[in-house]
């Protein structure tokens, strides 16, 4: 191909001769100019040269500006998108020793932080202290407060937005502590005022055996707690208070001992947000699931072995939404577990490990989930802190602290920092810049196992009603939707437009063509929002009603047209001669209108006779197709309508631009018009028809309003013509108002834009290259 172009002297000669002919007269003219005319000739020549140069500069500047602005758009899109993939950053901001004495006891401490990360509290050895992180000092008010006189042997922190803490004492009682941070504005300056409140001690186990483990969770119905005592008993209890949780009113305690041989092996407890599910992690690597919906009748649901090794479960945490459990072990493994559907168990679900994260070098001591997303931090007994994200299945960051066992760890409420307390009583705060933890190439472009699904899937669902929802940013449903819409539109538009163009250019009389072509081109003037509006609100319901008739039309129209064409052969020649005035077209119109009206009027007959009275059910039972009102069929008509004029017009131009002397040459060799068309004209016009198709394709890919209004915007991946889809372009339009500036969704929408841009850009580039090659091969002049 390339060698052909190089060797072919034809176009080059042509260009060379064109240059000669344009230059020759000038030289000729000036050399022959008689002297009296020379001055005015010089002036006009100067003006001409100036105009030439001016035009050249304008063209140059315009072209360059176009290229630069397109590049600018591309670079801007790229920059917006690239931040999605930039590495998260962190910096250690504060680290200081807290003022404590005495021996440390592993479980009996807790730390917390306010949402602005200004104040941290430490509950340690029965003392509660608030520290100002800016100054690393104990705050004077309320200062260090003693919350319990008896030693605290276990601390459990509830999940959720508030700082609820349950403490188990050496004498077997349970104490509640609630810490609050209030923002106070004074002269426009925000100050955080910490406060705390305590509840009365509650006795659960009458043995007064020291509590070794405790978990608590307040909910609308009261506080659910679970305790393990040194005597080897497990108790669950629900504490309900008439007048508020921590008031002086009578409290009602309903409690029940879990009779289970696991009691002595329990290493950690986990309650869900409703206080209805209890998980016990054991030293021998089992996860025991209890149902506490009826607190007086707890049910053992299942026991899951976490692995081959008898690895002790040291820490458990729910990610927000309470669907994924993060499990940390003695050997430092961190894994995510979800209930998956199975037929093996009675409940129909089984807790299954879905992901492994980077393993810690030491035993996991604490897990703290983010309150914002599906991220969490884990700490081990060698001072390491890792930041993970569940959806993205990645470990984003690793901090290597002070090689001292980390005793507690808290993720800041806004997920932009974390605080650790290690065995050296070193309180360390890290700041995090982790804006898009859920985005990786994998979450965007490969199937992801989302919460509540049994299989990895491509899903787009950027938002939902609840905060604890897992955003799903799979791009494939959108790319798929774009291709699906384009494909169905092109499937309808290409045959109609190209064949229409062939007929108009090759067989139609000149008078008729002068009417038909502009009329079709006017179709392009219809704004796509009008088309979309009509398609969504008028055509889609209509189509739903007349679908059986439409199906019948797809068979009867071709048949009746063919019959009409055959019949035309038998029309007397004298009548046929009137073809120039469009008699054949008039007859064809009558046939078409007749067929269509017959089909429409027998809509119900067809439905009852062919589809057993209900085509939707028939489609569903016979083919398994769900018929949605707004579907790809509607789009193929509406978007087909939008691209037909473009394809028609450009194809028609290129067909009628095939030189007449080529047509005569072919006909003179005894070719029929049809042979001339197929063997010569289509080949010669192929570059033009090809670019018509590509321009139509580009229009369909980028089309927004029609697909926005008539597809239902359901981001599903099914080829069925009877259901909808969501395209990249419509997705941008739909979700733009919901995307906060600079947020993950915002940038993912830019990614959709970038994909569209790249898509159309490469399609156009490839199309242009192919077109040039075709033109070099098949175009004569």
């Amino acid at each position: 191909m390339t060698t052909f172009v190089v060797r072919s002297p034809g176009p080059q000669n042509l260009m060379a001769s064109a240059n000669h002919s344009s230059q020759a007269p000038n030289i000729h003219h000036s050399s022959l100019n008689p002297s009296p005319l020379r001055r005015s000739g010089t002036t006009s020549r100067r003006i001409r040269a100036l105009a030439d140069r001016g035009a050249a500069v304008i063209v140059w500047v315009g072209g360059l500006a176009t290229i630069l602005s397109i590049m600018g758009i591309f670079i801007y899109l790229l920059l917006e998108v690239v931040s999605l993939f930039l590495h998260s950053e962190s910096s250690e901001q504060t680290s200081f020793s807290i003022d404590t004495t005495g021996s440390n006891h592993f479980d009996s401490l807790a730390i917390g932080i306010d949402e602005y990360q200004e104040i941290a509290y430490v509950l340690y050895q029965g003392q509660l202290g608030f520290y100002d992180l800016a100054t690393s000092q104990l705050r004077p008010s309320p200062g260090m407060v003693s919350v319990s006189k008896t030693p605290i042997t276990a601390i459990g922190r509830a999940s959720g937005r508030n700082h609820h803490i349950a403490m188990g004492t050496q004498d077997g009682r349970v104490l509640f502590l609630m810490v609050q941070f209030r923002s106070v504005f004074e002269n426009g300056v925000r100050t955080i005022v910490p406060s705390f409140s305590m509840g009365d001690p509650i006795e659960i186990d009458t043995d007064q055996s020291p509590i070794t483990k405790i978990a608590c969770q307040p909910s609308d119905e009261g506080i659910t707690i679970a305790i393990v005592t040194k005597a080897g008993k497990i108790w669950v209890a629900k504490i309900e208070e008439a007048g508020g949780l921590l008031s002086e009113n009578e409290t009602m305690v309903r409690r029940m001992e879990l009779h289970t041989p696991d009691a002595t092996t329990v290493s950690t407890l986990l309650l869900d947000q409703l206080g209805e599910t209890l998980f016990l992690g054991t030293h021998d690597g089992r996860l025991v699931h209890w149902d506490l919906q009826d607190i007086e009748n707890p049910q053992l649901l299942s026991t899951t072995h976490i692995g081959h090794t008898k690895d002790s479960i040291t820490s458990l945490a729910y990610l927000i939404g309470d669907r994924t459990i993060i499990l940390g072990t003695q050997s430092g493994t961190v894994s995510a577990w979800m209930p998956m559907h199975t037929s093996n168990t009675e409940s129909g679900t089984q807790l299954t490990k879905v992901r492994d994260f980077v393993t810690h070098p030491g035993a996991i001591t604490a897990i703290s989930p983010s309150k914002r997303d599906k991220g969490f931090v884990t700490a081990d007994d060698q001072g390491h802190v890792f930041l993970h994200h569940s959806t993205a299945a990645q470990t984003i960051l690793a901090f290597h602290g002070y090689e001292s066992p980390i005793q507690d760890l808290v993720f800041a409420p806004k997920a932009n920092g974390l605080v650790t307390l290690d065995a050296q009583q070193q309180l360390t705060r890290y700041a995090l810049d982790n804006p898009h933890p859920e985005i990786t190439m994998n979450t965007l472009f490969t199937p992801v196992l989302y919460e509540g699904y049994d299989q990895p899937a491509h899903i787009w669902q950027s938002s939902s009603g609840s905060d604890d929802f897992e955003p799903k940013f799979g791009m494939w449903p959108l790319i798929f939707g774009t291709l699906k819409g384009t494909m169905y539109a092109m499937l309808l538009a290409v045959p109609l437009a190209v064949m229409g163009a062939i007929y108009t250019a090759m067989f139609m009389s000149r008078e008729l063509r002068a009417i038909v072509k502009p009329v079709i081109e006017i179709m392009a003037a219809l704004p796509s929002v009008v088309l979309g509006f009509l398609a969504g609100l008028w055509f889609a319901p209509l189509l739903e009603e007349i679908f059986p008739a439409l199906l019948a039309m797809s068979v009867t129209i071709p048949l009746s047209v063919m019959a009409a064409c055959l019949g035309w052969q038998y029309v007397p020649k004298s009548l046929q001669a009137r073809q120039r005035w469009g008699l054949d077209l008039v007859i064809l119109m009558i046939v078409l209108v007749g067929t269509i009206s017959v089909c429409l009027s027998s809509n119900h007959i067809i439905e009852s006779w062919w589809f057993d009275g209900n085509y939707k059910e028939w489609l569903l039972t016979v083919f398994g197709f769900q018929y949605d009102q707004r579907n790809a069929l509607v789009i193929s008509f509406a978007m087909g309508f939008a691209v037909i004029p473009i394809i028609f017009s450009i194809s028609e131009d290129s067909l009628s631009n095939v030189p007449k002397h080529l047509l005569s040459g072919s006909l003179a060799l005894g070719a029929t018009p049809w042979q001339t068309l197929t063997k010569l004209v289509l080949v010669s016009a192929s570059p033009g028809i090809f670019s018509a198709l590509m321009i139509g394709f580009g229009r369909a890919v980028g089309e927004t309003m029609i697909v926005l209004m008539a597809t239902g915007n359901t981001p599903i991946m099914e080829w069925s013509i009877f259901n909808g889809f969501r395209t990249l372009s419509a997705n941008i339009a739909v979700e733009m108002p919901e995307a906060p500036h600079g947020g993950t969704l915002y940038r993912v929408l830019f990614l959709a834009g970038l994909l569209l841009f790249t898509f159309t850009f490469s399609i156009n580039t490839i199309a242009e290259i192919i077109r040039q090659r075709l033109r070099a091969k098949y175009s004569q002049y």
Partner: protein
Amino acid sequence: MNLHMPPYSKAPATKMTPKILIQNMNFFYGATQALFDVNLEVPAQQITAFIGPSGCGKSTLLRCLNRLNDLVDGSRLEGQILLDGQDIYRADVDVTDLRTRVGIVFQKVNPFPKTIYQNVAYGPRLQKVNRRATLDDIVEKSLQGAGLWEEVKDRLHASALSLSGGQQQRLCIARALAVNPNVLLMDEPCSALDPISTAKIEELLHTLKEQLTVVIVTHNMQQAARVSDYTGFFLLGELIEYDNTKKIFTNPGDQRTEDYVTGRFG
């Protein structure tokens, strides 16, 4: 001889059978009449030239001979054109078949944007000649017939557009020959060519005449004098004079013919 309207201008002293017989022919483009009552006899295996100033209807007449004028909207023909005694304008005549018997070479050099081989094989392929060996044979013979074989035999699969103007025109002749016509119409075939290419084509005409009847329309009177056996002179849609070429150029029977061939108008 009747100077104004010869009722029947036959080529005098011809011993050949007429290949084409045109009788009382009038031709109209819509309302405009382009040819007026033309009567003419084209002898077989001779070269007949039509001369005359621009717009005199000579090309129109040529295009009537293979019904290419059918393609013009609103064109209409009265009278008869007989090819081998058969009226080619009868309703049951297969136009495509007629055109394979009456080939044409145009003034505007018009090779198809295909390879040299495909150009020549275009006509035979239309008639479903698809055997490679047969096609190769036809292509070679036709190119030889058009005197182009030696120049292109090594690059049959190069684009026809890579040939020079004169070669392209001889390719068009080869293309016309490939469907094995018995009449070849040439509509000013050399007007766009340089003298050397013109000479080659004129030379070619002499060899072609041995196998087929040639009708050539030309502006160039020297060419008509050089190549043709019979010459018809047209003026404003009328056939003024039709005779032996020698007679037309040396001793024309009509004053207008004399004025034209001696260059008093043109």
